[in-house]
């Protein structure tokens, strides 16, 4: 990893003339390596199976008031141009690494765009990529991830590690389906999902805050518990009575006038279900409240240095309880996506590990609500790309495509985060004397 010679025990005698490198950023080295590997991967794929034909990128949706034209490009040449562009960006990253300057944000972004364009023009040769549905689908798939990640960010900022996001999503999905079926209102289902998420958070808090049990263990146990519980209830109660208990009305898409008609952005962001609009509000509120209000200052204080908070009269454990209950409610809302938006009705283990990806988004987003939201959107994009590509029958095996979201998660968390610092008292219970 490092270019610095580590003295070996065998050398015994004289010290190696280790060239001591001056200040080095940790992220600075990873970037060129990742770029190089990705570029090589793309080039290899192109060499092994090149496709003739054109790739069509469709920008327009049906109802825009200005219709953007399709972009048609020759598949192979475009992909190769992008490889060259990627190489250039890799060279730039290497140059910056050698010159010990910071890697600015635009470098990875430009690389990602170039690489993705190259990959898509290869994978969709002779096909049509609907960019609007690619992005709109990404937003939709990211809903539970963003809600879950916000719940995670809040909990951890207050010093409670919330591994139970998965359980909160699943229990939220279950409660939403049943309540919406009984009342006939998806909004009632959403409220029930929040209560369900908060309930899981309450159990987490009871063990983690009051009884000092290891938070990671409690979280994992809660996830398993919710899987068992909902499976049991599904089989014993929901399945036999699916007409009354498991056939909720879905949230249907609700385009926002004017905003929804903007080309590209409109259909992606503003022709979604109401749950997405709730999400926008929640993201904004959490980000504002965490940094700009008394409540947020106290939550962060409790997560960084609980004793200091205690000495200025803040009730540490009460603050933590309140925060994780709120966090649970927010994560629970994400659960409603599965049974009220994605499909109508609950099914066994329908969250499929989304809670863990949300957890990854928390870390990738450096415990910041906005960054975590962006991370969750990235993961949502990876999931949707998988769906889109297998639909148009891309040459990549579908099993590999199914791995994609998780692969992106691992790479993101392992490599790209750079220096990130969790709240200092994250996961540490506070005991008063």
């Amino acid at each position, binding site marked *: 990893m490092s270019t610095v010679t580590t003295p070996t025990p065998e050398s015994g005698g004289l*010290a190696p003339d280790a060239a001591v*490198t001056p200040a080095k950023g940790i992220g600075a080295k990873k970037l060129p390596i990742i770029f190089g590997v990705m570029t090589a991967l793309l080039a290899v794929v192109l060499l092994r199976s090149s496709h003739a034909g054109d790739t069509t990128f469709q920008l327009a949706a049906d109802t825009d008031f200005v219709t953007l034209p399709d972009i048609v490009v020759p598949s192979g040449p475009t992909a190769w141009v992008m490889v060259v562009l990627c190489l250039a960006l890799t060279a730039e990253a290497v140059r910056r690494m050698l010159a010990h300057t910071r890697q600015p944000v635009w470098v990875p972004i430009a690389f990602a765009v170039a690489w993705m364009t190259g990959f898509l023009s290869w994978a969709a040769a002779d096909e049509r990529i609907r960019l609007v549905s690619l992005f709109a689908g990404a937003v939709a798939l990211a809903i539970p991830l963003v809600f879950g990640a916000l719940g995670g960010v809040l909990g951890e900022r207050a010093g409670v590690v919330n591994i139970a996001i998965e359980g909160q999503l699943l229990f939220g999905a279950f409660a939403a389906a049943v309540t919406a079926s009984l009342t006939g209102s998806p909004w009632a289902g959403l409220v029930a999902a929040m209560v369900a998420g908060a309930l899981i958070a309450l159990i987490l808090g009871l063990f983690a805050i009051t009884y000092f049990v290891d938070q990671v263990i409690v979280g994992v146990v809660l996830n398993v518990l919710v899987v068992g519980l909902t499976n049991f209830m599904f089989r014993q109660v929901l399945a036999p009575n699916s007409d009354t208990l498991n056939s909720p009305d879905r949230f249907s898409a609700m385009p926002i006038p004017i905003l929804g008609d903007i080309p590209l952005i409109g259909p992606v962001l503003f022709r979604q279900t109401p749950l997405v609009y709730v999400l926008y509000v929640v993201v904004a509120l959490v980000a504002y409240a965490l940094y700009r209000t008394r409540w947020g200052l106290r939550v962060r204080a409790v997560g960084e*240095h609980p004793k*200091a908070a205690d*000495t*200025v009269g803040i009730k540490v454990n009460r603050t933590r309880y309140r925060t994780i209950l709120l966090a649970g409610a927010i994560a629970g809302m994400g659960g409603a996506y599965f049974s009220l938006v994605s499909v109508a009705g609950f099914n066994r283990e329908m969250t499929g590990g989304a809670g863990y990806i949300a957890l990854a988004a928390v870390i990738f987003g450096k415990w910041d609500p906005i960054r975590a939201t962006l991370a969750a959107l990235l993961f949502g994009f990876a999931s949707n790309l998988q769906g889109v590509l297998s639909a148009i029958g891309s040459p990549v095996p579908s099993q590999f495509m199914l791995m994609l979201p998780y692969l992106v998660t691992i790479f993101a968390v392992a490599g790209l985060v750079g220096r990130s610092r969790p709240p200092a008292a994250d996961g540490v219970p506070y005991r008063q*004397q």
Partner: protein
Amino acid sequence: MRLVLRGITKRFGSVVANDSISLSVEPGEIHCLLGENGAGKSTLMNVLYGLYKADEGEIELDGEVQHFTGPGDAMAAGIGMVHQHFMLIPVFSVAENVMLGNETTGFAGTLDLDASRARVTEISDRFGFHVDPDALVEDLPVGVQQRVEIIKALSRDAELLVFDEPTAVLTPQETDELMEIMRQLKEAGKAIVFITHKLREVRAVADRITVIRLGKVVGEAEPTASNAELASMMVGRPVELTVHKDAPTLGADALVVKDLRVTDLAGHRQVDGLSFTIRAGEVLCVAGVQGNGQTELTEALLGLQDDVSGSITLDGEELVGRSTRRILDAGVGFIPEDRQVDGLVPNFTIAENLMLNRSFKSPFVKNGSLRLGALREFAQKKLKEYDVRARDIDSLAANLSGGNQQKVVVARELSRELRLLVAAQPTRGVDVGSIEFIHKQIVATRDSGIPVLVVSTELDEVVALADRIMVLYRGRVVGIVPADTPRETLGLMMTGERPKDLKDVAS
């Protein structure tokens, strides 16, 4: 504000930390609480501050009995505390730290940061603190962080200020400045409680002195009392405050360090071109404010740092590049600066801790198995020899007092054939009796012809032990000076300034 404590008793399980303590503090007065580490001073103040609940006794402010359920109540009543370990949030700005728990807010709980900034600036100007309200606390020097703590208390209109061991982390200059601040606060009519175990400081600022030993008030003393009188009240028997040592019998150059550079994981050069020599039978003390490369220097000597260049030779053998185990086997003894983290395994018994540096071969290991009999015998002997106060050798290290823990570390390190002793902060958080004992051991080691490197941030200790003093600042040597260099000069050097007429002494 007038504070009266009456018969405060606080027990932790079977331990009585405070035994019916009574004292009073008047406005415009600096009242010193003097006592050893573990005498119960901090416990008493935590009771006063509402962090602990007293089992018996009363707290009275201006004639009214108080019932605090938490620090919030104490603060509301006008008590401010400057904690030994600062109660500041490192990633928050000064203004955020000062307002925390006492926030002025606008619409819907929105923070009014401007109000807090103004408050910080106002208090800072009034007392000449020079604190930037927007600086992040983690970027500030320790002395300034302490002022933030004071501002925090003053911004809540505290009338009684408690300083809990405030000078432990300060340079001599910062200490002098703090004394000045305390006098200013006193002039402003505040009542001040000053907790310390340092006699020099007590005599400099105290109006009245109360001495506490083993949880009890053992008496009051006048600021005119001599150091020896105060020390014997504090410890309960006459103590030797000066270390008796003869002139060193110097041998050949033993430890030779040349152009040592250490870079930490974040890429910062922590030790930057150090060169020095220690002769056999000599104590070289490293002085300097904490965090100026001392930790990295000692760890580099022990092979615990990864990124090291330069040369360290011990009796002509190169140590750089050797594994820690081979350095230990070469006869280097190491008393680490934090015994809780690096010196001991808290959940091991005393006996187990005593064999940590010889866990591979004889005398305690044979054919891969522990020789428990030999270990027990050794441990029993050392327990007596080093006067470790514990029930038996099977007591857990975690259950010992700081002084006794440190004696276990010292016993382990001095119980083999040594060719070099590296002692980092050997008496930090250790009671006076144990300090005396450990200092004697270090001098005895020197007298047996072993080179000794002592790192200490306590100037008293440096002056007491050193044959020569090396002052570090930002990883570089400011100067290597004789042991009788005036404290003022040393204090100045610790801030990185090198007096013009200074001459380095070679060994």
